[in-house]
């Protein structure tokens, strides 16, 4: 599903975030991406959804060579990838419903279908009946779960998460992680960047360890 082939990323200021990174992730796999901050985890994720482009090497996503993808095809790529952020990046001037509905709205789905899918996604993350709430009125954990509902509502084959539990206490973090595990069991390829080693070690999952832009260990 994901293939990195001798990928390097050098930013315009000369900083090399990734050097000669190669790995393969099978469809439906659940993979942790670990390493200290600045190791290149975020950059690696950005190469997958076309936010950044590799300086050298090839990135293949679902058989498509992203490194050579023309700009007009980037939206199509991103519609198949769900993203979860550390600070969840919800729109605070929109209700929970509209936040979760965003990917479906972009896909041009019928309003009735959108309503059905949004409610299904919210119930999956344990927020049934909260679609009319404003994000402000939710707790940190609830906000993060709204962010996860938004990332999976359009049933993307790939789910990327950048420090999804960074601001949460251990109990909430485990809860969120088990949610991700469920998605991978449904066939979604899940890649989670985190520096929460304790949490990673408590879960049976593959680990890609990054340090200074290189893969240290598997």
């Amino acid at each position, binding site marked *: 599903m994901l293939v990195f082939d001798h990928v390097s990323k050098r930013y315009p200021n000369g900083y090399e975030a990734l050097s000669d990174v190669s790995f393969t992730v099978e469809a439906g796999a659940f993979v942790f991406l670990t390493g200290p901050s600045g190791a290149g985890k975020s950059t690696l994720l950005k190469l997958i959804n076309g936010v950044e482009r590799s300086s050298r090497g090839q990135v293949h996503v679902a058989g498509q060579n992203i490194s050579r993808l023309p700009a007009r095809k980037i939206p199509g790529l991103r519609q198949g*990838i769900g993203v979860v952020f550390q600070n969840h990046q919800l729109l605070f001037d929109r209700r929970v419903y509209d936040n979760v509905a*965003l990917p479906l709205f972009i896909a*041009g789905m019928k309003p009735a279908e959108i309503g059905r899918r949004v409610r299904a996604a919210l119930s999956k993350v344990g927020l049934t009946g909260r679609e009319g709430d404003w994000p402000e009125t939710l707790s940190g954990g609830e906000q993060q779960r709204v962010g996860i509902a938004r990332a999976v509502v359009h049933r993307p084959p790939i789910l990327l998460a950048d420090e999804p539990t960074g601001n949460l206490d251990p109990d909430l973090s485990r809860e969120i992680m088990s949610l991700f595990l469920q998605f991978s069991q449904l066939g979604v390829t899940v890649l989670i960047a985190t520096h929460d080693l304790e949490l990673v070690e408590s879960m049976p999952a593959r680990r890609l360890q990054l340090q200074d832009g290189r893969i240290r260990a598997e």
Partner: protein
Amino acid sequence: MNESATGSGAHLRQINRTDRLKAWSRHHRQLFRSTLITLLNQPGALLITWLVIGIALSLPILLSLALREISEADTRQVIQPAMSVYLSVPSESETAQALLKRLRASSAVGEVRLITEQAALAEFSSLAGFGDVLNAFSENPLPGIIEVVPRERDGAGIKLLAQQIAGQDGVDQVSFDAAWLERLSAILGILERVLYALGVLFSGAVILIIGNTLRLTIENQRGEIEITKLFGGSDSFVQRPFIYRGFWLGFGGALLAFFIIQSSLLYLSGPVERLAQSYRSNFALEALNFGESIGLFALGALLGILGSWVSVWRYLKQIQPK
């Protein structure tokens, strides 16, 4: 699940062309309403923007309405006064009557009107201040006058006609102000150009105003735009709401311009009519008719869409998720 089975997995489910078209038109219909509602949620800011656009649109249009009325054919009297043929013989005389007949038959002459000595005296004494002067004469000192409105509209042709009439029997002299005519038509020509230039400048101003307003909006919605792009919203998908906002700003501005123009005309109509009457003209500032009003709204909407296109496209492209 192997790689080949999900070969196109990173794409959203394959959507066929009809569905995509339906989604596209649904998005347009939604935005048509939702962008107006969003704008109306900030009535103060919206009203000010509409007013600025309305004023910028109404100024050149008001000027062009005035110019159109001045140069229109039925107001020729104002800019093309009839030439006055002063008679050397009494207006009842056969010579004068024959001259009158010849002028009426002439193809170069549009309208002919005889002002007898008595009529001239009556008109003259009705003008303030002249009554006393005329009382000093024991008999009517005024000659009979034939007013001739030439068919010819250009200065040289009118001059030629005047010379022809001056050479006829019973004519004392012919008076008309050729230089004034030429000057006026030159001034109108200049005014017309000034007007075009103003029209272009004010349209440009409207485009800039709308572009600038939208850019501020974009700056406020930067986060939303980034997220939308991150979840696969294309550049044109992201731009579409701003096109509709531009449309509403321009259209609403044109609506206000319409009211500004019609009320200005109402406000001016009294004095203009009095002025026109003093020229014995039926000159009047006419309000925008139906077609022109529609044209004004279309212009506003078009400038709005253009303003959005020109200024927003590049700006939106620059906003990329980080």
